[in-house]
């Protein structure tokens, strides 16, 4: 097994063993979405109209909760130094960790979304597109998030800082994720927003680790 696959496998195993990070993110997602109908009242038309947006925004916030841990645990126990002396360039170390975050956190959140959609009276026809936009859009969440996590590695209370740094960068993903769902419910094709969403994720997969590695190099001095 290559060093990259070894690192991804270890992070996934740790995510399963520790469990806490995923549990917190899923729990937070569920609670935020559940509270919304309670706050807005039982206007089914209103809920179903805002459901995709609510599900997307709550997903971004939930993913944000688990981002600080992407590099922090390896930094705190000294693993990051040793990872840096390994055969992988730091860019690929960052990419492996972001990929593990995507698999262990972003995908479960995306799969929980349709269940929560029931609470919001989401149009049944929108379910497949909603999950598809989330699966295609969330690599951007994890890979841009990894850059934010690396930048705030040594910052005190870095979690809040990550939100300020990273949430604005999620805006394009949010806009085109919503555009894809909107195109399905209204006139117009779904393909175009999907392609742009894919492009955003691919760009994040390439640029995120480069930014993260640059930040890590500074933090490790």
């Amino acid at each position: 097994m290559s060093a990259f696959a070894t690192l991804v496998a270890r992070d996934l195993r740790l995510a399963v063993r520790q469990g806490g990070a995923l549990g917190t993110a899923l729990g937070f997602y569920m609670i935020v979405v559940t509270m919304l109908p309670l706050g807005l009242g039982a206007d089914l038309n209103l809920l179903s109209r805002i459901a995709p947006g609510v599900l997307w925004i709550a997903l971004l916030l939930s993913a944000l909760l688990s981002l600080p841990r992407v590099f922090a645990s390896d930094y705190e126990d000294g693993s990051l130094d040793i990872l840096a002396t390994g055969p992988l360039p730091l860019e690929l170390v960052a990419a492996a960790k972001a990929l593990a975050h995507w698999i262990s956190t972003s995908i479960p959140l995306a799969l929980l979304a349709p269940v929560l959609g029931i609470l919001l009276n989401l149009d049944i026809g929108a379910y497949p597109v909603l999950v598809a936009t989330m699966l295609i859009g969330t690599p951007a969440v994890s890979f841009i998030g990894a850059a934010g996590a690396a930048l705030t590695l040594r910052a005190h209370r870095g979690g809040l800082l990550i939100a300020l740094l990273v949430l604005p960068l999620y805006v394009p993903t949010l806009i085109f994720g919503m555009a894809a769902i909107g195109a399905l419910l209204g006139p117009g094709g779904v393909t175009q927003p999907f392609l742009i969403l894919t492009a955003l994720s691919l760009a994040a997969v390439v640029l995120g680790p480069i930014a993260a590695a640059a930040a890590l190099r500074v933090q490790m001095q």
Partner: protein
Amino acid sequence: MQLVAENLVLCRGGRTIIEGLSFRLEAGAALLLTGANGSGKTTLLRALAGFLKPAAGAIAVGNGADERELGELSHFVGHLDGIKAHLTVAENLAFWAAYLDGGDVAIALDAFALSGLADIPAGYLSAGQKRRLGLARLAVAARPLWLLDEPTVSLDAASVGLLVKTLEAHVGGGGLAVIATHVPLALADAREIRLGAAGDRK
């Protein structure tokens, strides 16, 4: 294989910690770094591992033909052991073995008397046992340059003996080792560099 440092100037946090340090280490030699707290032992080791870029001067390693970077030639054992509490002792070591392209985990466990603890989650280990697990990484993958930052901290006398034995085997086989320490290590033919107390230097 050799390690050459020329006129190294190392800065951390805007302060010059080490100024104008030069040394040359040939294959099969160990270098002990001593000096007061804050004299730059860790800083120098981090520079040798490639984490910290020298402000001036150069570090060269290898025999000219090797183009790998500093970090890829060295084992870095710092103050922290790089251990995951939720993985067992054997799993921790097996990960580093696979990641660092190393070999047999069982031999490395044996070299640091950890065989009996192999299936215990590393979170339950004592400080000394964790240190030994951190050091066992040295035996799991072959690398020419060992950079050890106070490796004897929290080790008992028997474990220090194991470490010295492993170090002598490594150095005897043509390896290089740079060791920051406060405790005299019973290493044959080890050179020593005493770093000046730069803790109060501006």
